[in-house]
């Protein structure tokens, strides 16, 4: 139906967006690749030439690498498990008839809109501070010794903070999905005598499968890159140095651009593996 003329007009309208994104993707990517094969220390002699795969080998063999990978995976997995499990429960609860549903929804969704630096600082100081934090008061009230959360239990604390930020997102998406469930199907199952657990396992959960997949993929992409939460709480100490934070330290703190760039290439590869799965699902959605 589209004429030749409208086709070329369409191409013209698309051009600025495509060119900008192409530049934004390719220029830094090529630079990162370039640096990753060079010895480049801006403060100690500058660019000292090609070094082959040295940076790649050094990044992987450094003693900080595997702990960082482990930390990254633990944070991603921990937050995913907490947010998806609680998200499903919360979505089912919010879907029930109740008074003041709109207000409850607003309360639940609020943490998502709090900027990461604020939520990290509020949790760090007002809740997890070992002297004046609310948790310390609570612990003392029950006669227990207050915990230095961000040094003695740094990982669980960070996972908790990040889960608090992402639970609203998971809940909202799962709630949207649950609301599209045909209630007649559930009623029929109820009348046929299917107990609640079976109804959950055989009707609700399969219906939510796609939404859960989407939540997992999108959160994974954001969680692989969390930065502010670690930057303002532990600064990467106490076993909370993720892969992105390690790269950040190599680049900006030790000013070893070659090594940091090699790490960056690893991070890009890791993110792309996740991205491919997400694209498949979203792509399928475009077809129908």
């Amino acid at each position, binding site marked *: 139906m589209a004429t030749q003329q409208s086709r070329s007009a369409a191409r013209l309208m698309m051009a600025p967006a495509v060119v900008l*994104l192409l530049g934004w993707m390719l220029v830094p990517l090529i630079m990162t690749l370039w640096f990753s094969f060079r010895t480049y220390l801006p403060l100690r002699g500058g660019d000292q030439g090609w070094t082959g795969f040295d940076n790649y080998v050094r990044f992987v063999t450094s003693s900080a690498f595997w702990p960082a990978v482990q930390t990254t995976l633990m944070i991603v997995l921990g937050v995913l498990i907490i947010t998806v499990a609680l998200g499903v429960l919360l979505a089912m609860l919010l879907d029930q008839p*109740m008074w003041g549903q709109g207000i409850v929804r607003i309360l639940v969704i609020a943490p998502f809109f709090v900027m990461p630096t604020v939520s990290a600082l509020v949790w760090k100081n007002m809740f997890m501070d070992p002297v004046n934090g609310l948790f310390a008061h609570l612990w003392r009230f029950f006669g227990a010794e207050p915990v230095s959360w961000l040094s003695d239990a740094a990982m669980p604390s960070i996972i908790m903070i990040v889960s608090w930020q992402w639970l609203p997102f998971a809940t909202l998406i799962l709630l949207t999905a649950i609301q599209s469930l045909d209630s007649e199907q559930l009623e029929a199952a109820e009348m046929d005598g299917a107990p609640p657990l079976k109804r959950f396992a055989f009707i609700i959960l399969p219906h939510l499968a796609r939404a859960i997949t989407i939540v997992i993929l999108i959160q994974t992409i954001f969680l692989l890159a969390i930065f502010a939460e670690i930057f303002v709480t532990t600064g990467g100490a106490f076993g909370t140095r993720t892969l992105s934070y390690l790269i950040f330290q190599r680049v900006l703190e030790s000013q070893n651009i070659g090594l940091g760039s090699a790490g960056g*290439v690893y991070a890009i590869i890791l993110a792309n593996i996740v991205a491919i799965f997400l694209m498949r699902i979203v792509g399928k959605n475009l077809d129908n």
Partner: protein
Amino acid sequence: MARAVTPRRKLVNTGLAWAVGLLIFFPILWTILTSFKTEGQAIASPPIFLGFDWTLENYSVVMERSDYGRFLMNSIIIAGGSTILGLIVAVPAAWSMAFVPSQRTKDILLWMLSTKMLPAVGVLYPIYLLFIQLGLLDSRAGLVVVMMLINLPIIVWMLYTYFREIPGEILEAARMDGATLKEEVLYILTPMAIPGIASTMLLNFILAWNEAFWTLNLTAVDAAPLTAFIASYSSPEGLFFAKLSAASTMAIAPILILGWFSQKQLVRGLTFGAVK
């Protein structure tokens, strides 16, 4: 999925949901409450919930001491500027993809999404270097461009899913009634597209406002937005709970209010239309 239930069941649901909702909201509520206490009351043991002397002193101290106005202005300029710039670039692109689709439209859309997955830390130094070379480090213009590029895929996608819902039949009907192209765009397409464009603006503004990787790494003094303003409290200054709370409240209040209006768009925008 509204079903008829017994009042008893509804009461239980309501109680449970409110309890959970308040628990999740509590850290924010606590921050807001603490911002009205004196420093002494903020760390009182046992903690005081409501029975304290409400004061606005913390707000005036924060305003005075850290030039809150400039940070706020930077946040507004960066989030607002990148949103407007993004729309200027994205509206024509999404429009043509929705109304004149070709075989490659789907590939282009997916490719755009893929640029969003590029981990920021992987390209931090190149961008840093380019910013120094171009004199953009710690400038609002530089951040506006970066925020726009980061969020461009989301803007294009959201607009695309909205535009695709405008039925082509309406256009044909208008054409048959003798509407010119100009009238078609002005009186039919634009009014139908405005809600979608407004939602996209809202979500994009929120995302840019809260972005904390590039804003922390590419700014120092002049262009630093509220994310950096708050991060400066991670030093021992953060131990002044009441002031930290006042600063936090000031940083999140505008976006919290906007955010509550944009819940639905959030689902659509961040799942790229895959969950509706």
